[in-house]
């Protein structure tokens, strides 16, 4: 299969080359654009490694939300870049850090390449117990049944992350609307896209959540797509982000983790352990948790990109100035 080898070698060289360019790029904005291309290359790498769920997550996050986050940050930092460039550490220190990173990468590569063949794996055990959960996708089985505690903690930690972003606001602006996504163009292309794309996006997002039980997909990919659609609508100026004091939005943020914890606690009575599912109801409970988590993760991702709140007069001023 030398053609597969050629394709793999080409992908590896591209990924490494692009990574080197991103690291060496002088302006953060150009490097962020390179990083969006890097995310696309990584999607192909994940597909080549037969990790389709991860490829979907990379596609959903890398081309959508991460690009928005990094490009927005790079744009805000642009005035300070020259000063930062003057103050960066000297060549010797940078070479030392580079050698250290390369050593760690080499160590990781050695660990992976020197694994015994066949490598130790739990895949057989996962496949053996999967029918009991009613799921068909082993990734979802691991995330929602075998390692549900990890997923619970991950979903809970999103809320403090959002609170951290909100805490960057000033005292006076608490309660206002998030100010990073105010629309900044008055052309008609972006509002057109924001009117036509979200119906398909919402359909695809819901499909991903539902299909994640048996096929590659799941709540995180679905939530990333839904959040991307919401952010598109906000960036195009068709809807305003909700103020941070909005009670309904706060409820939606926590409904997922609360659902998860509630079902987990019920598992103590009904199935003998925290987050154990009673045998007959495993799949409906898992789907209920996934739906709740989709809502919460969508809200969190959207608000993470919307940024800290700004006071209402400043919000109006920003919107008017940019349009």
């Amino acid at each position, binding site marked *: 299969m030398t053609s597969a080898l050629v394709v793999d070698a080409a992908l590896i060289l591209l990924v490494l080359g692009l990574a080197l360019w991103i690291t060496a790029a002088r302006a953060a904005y150009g490097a962020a654009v390179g990083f969006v291309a890097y995310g696309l290359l990584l999607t192909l790498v994940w597909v080549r490694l037969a990790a389709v769920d991860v490829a979907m997550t990379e596609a959903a996050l890398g081309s959508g939300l991460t690009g928005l986050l990094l490009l927005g940050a790079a744009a805000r930092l642009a005035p300070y870049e020259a000063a930062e460039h003057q103050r960066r550490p000297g060549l010797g220190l940078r070479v030392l850090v580079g050698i250290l990173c390369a050593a760690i990468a080499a160590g990781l590569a050695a660990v992976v390449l020197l694994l015994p063949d066949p490598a130790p794996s739990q895949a057989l055990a996962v496949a053996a117990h999967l029918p009991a959960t009613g799921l068909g996708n082993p990734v979802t089985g691991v995330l929602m049944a075998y390692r549900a505690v990890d997923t619970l903690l991950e979903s809970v930690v999103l809320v403090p992350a959002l609170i951290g972003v909100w805490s960057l606001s000033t005292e006076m602006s608490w309660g206002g609307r998030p100010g990073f996504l105010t629309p900044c163009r008055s052309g008609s*292309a972006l509002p057109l896209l924001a009117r036509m*794309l979200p119906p*398909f996006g919402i359909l695809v997002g819901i499909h991903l959540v539902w299909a994640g039980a048996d096929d590659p997909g799941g709540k995180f990919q679905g939530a990333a797509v839904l959040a991307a659609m919401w952010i598109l609508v906000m960036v195009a100026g068709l809807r305003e982000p909700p103020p941070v004091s909005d009670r309904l939005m706060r409820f939606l943020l926590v409904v997922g983790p609360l659902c998860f914890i509630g079902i987990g606690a019920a598992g103590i009575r009904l199935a003998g352990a925290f987050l154990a599912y009673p045998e007959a109801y495993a799949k409906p409970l898992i789907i209920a948790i996934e739906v709740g988590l989709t809502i919460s993760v969508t809200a969190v991702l959207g608000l993470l990109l919307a940024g800290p709140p700004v006071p209402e007069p400043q919000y109006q001023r920003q919107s008017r100035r940019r349009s």
Partner: protein
Amino acid sequence: MSLALDLFTIVAVTLGAIFFLAGTVGLLRFPDTLTRLHALTKADNLGLGLVVLGLLPQATAPLGWIGLIAVWLLALLSGATVGQLLAEAVRPPEWDQTRTPDAPPDVHPNAPEASSHD
């Protein structure tokens, strides 16, 4: 019958790949951002469209066809919008001020004497 369909697939996909090649060559060789954008949107429309057309006989049932065509339509929508957005972003700043709404442009936007052009 299936031989004819296979032949159709091979021809269409090959043409699509040629258009991708043309798009890349345009991206690398054209002199200016706006012309490169033009090359890019051709790869989007025709390259992907021909590939999707070629894959239609190979896909299963009506559901597979709908999926393939949906991908192409989404790529069309995105490509059209991206073309407008990026062109607006690289337009020279005095482009609006020098034109009256109905007059044809009397200076080409890519001409060397356009001032703040890279």
